[in-house]
C-alpha cells in the first residue's frame, strides 16, 4: 500500500466517490413503529461517526452524512455508481414523539435512530375492577 493517502470529501473531486456538488445521495431507510417508539434505520455506507450530522429542528429530523474513504493519491475513477460523497434526507416528526430523547447509533454504515413517544401518549392498560 502507498503511504500517500487522501480522503474523499464533498468539496473536492475524489475518484473513490466522484463528487458532483449538485448530487445529494438519498439514503435508503426502514422505519418501524411499536407502542413505545419509532425506529429508523438508514444505510450510510462510507460515513464515519465524525461525518454524521443528525439535527432535530422544529419537528424536522435531518440526517446528513459525508463519505470519507482513504485512497491512493493518484487514483482515477474508472466506474462509479456512487457519484457524490454526501447523503441527506429529512423527515417531519409528529407531536407525540419526544424529540428530546432521540438516541442514535452508527455501526458499519447503518444508522439507527430511536425516537420514543411521549409518556402521556403511551397506551395504558385499564384495569377493570369488579363491580
Amino acid at each position, binding site marked *: 500500500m502507498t503511504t500517500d493517502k487522501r480522503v474523499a470529501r464533498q468539496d473536492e473531486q475524489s475518484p473513490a466517490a466522484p463528487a458532483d456538488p449538485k448530487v445529494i445521495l438519498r439514503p435508503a431507510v426502514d422505519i418501524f413503529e411499536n407502542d413505545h417508539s419509532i425506529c429508523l434505520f438508514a444505510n450510510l455506507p462510507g460515513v464515519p461517526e465524525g461525518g454524521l450530522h443528525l439535527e432535530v429542528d422544529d419537528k424536522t429530523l435531518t440526517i446528513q452524512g459525508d463519505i470519507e474513504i482513504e485512497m491512493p493519491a*493518484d487514483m482515477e475513477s474508472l466506474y462509479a455508481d456512487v457519484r457524490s460523497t454526501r447523503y441527506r434526507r429529512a423527515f417531519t416528526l409528529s407531536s407525540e414523539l419526544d424529540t428530546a430523547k432521540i438516541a442514535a447509533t452508527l455501526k458499519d454504515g447503518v444508522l439507527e435512530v430511536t425516537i420514543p413517544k411521549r409518556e402521556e401518549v403511551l397506551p395504558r392498560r385499564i384495569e377493570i375492577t369488579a363491580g
Partner: protein
Amino acid sequence: MFGSITNWENDLFDQFDRLRREMEDVWGSPGGPASIRASASGSYPAINVGASAEGIDVYVFAAGLDRDKIDISVQQNLLSISGECMPTQPEKSSAHRKERFSGPFRRSLSLPEDIDPDSATASYRNGVLHLGFKRKAEARPRKIQINQ
C-alpha cells in the same frame, strides 16, 4: 419537500424516482453499449472502481454486513462479490417504510488484464468493502535512470 416519518402515501419524490427507474429499465440508460455484465441501475450494492499506477481499487457500498458472510472470489479476471443482508426489524413493530435492501446479492466485474489476482487485499470499514488489487510487476510504471 419532506416525507412524513409515518406517511409514505404521498411522497412525490419517491414516485418520481420509481418512475425514472422503471423508464430506465424499459429503454436502458442513455449512451453507448453497456458492458455485458453491467447490472441495471439501482442494483445492490453500489460499486465504485478507481485505478492508480499501482493497481485497481474497488469500493463496495454495502452497509451493515456480517464480515464472515461476505464472499469474494476472483476467477480468471472476473471478480465476484456476494453476500446476504439480513433484514432488521425490532420486535412487535410494524413497518412504515422498507427501502433498505435485504436478502442475497451478487455483483461481478471484470478486472483489467494486467491485474495480479493473488495480490488482493480486502477490508470492511464503515459499511464500505474495499478491495485492492496490484498490477503485475511488469505492468507497473518504472522509472528509468539515465546513466551518467
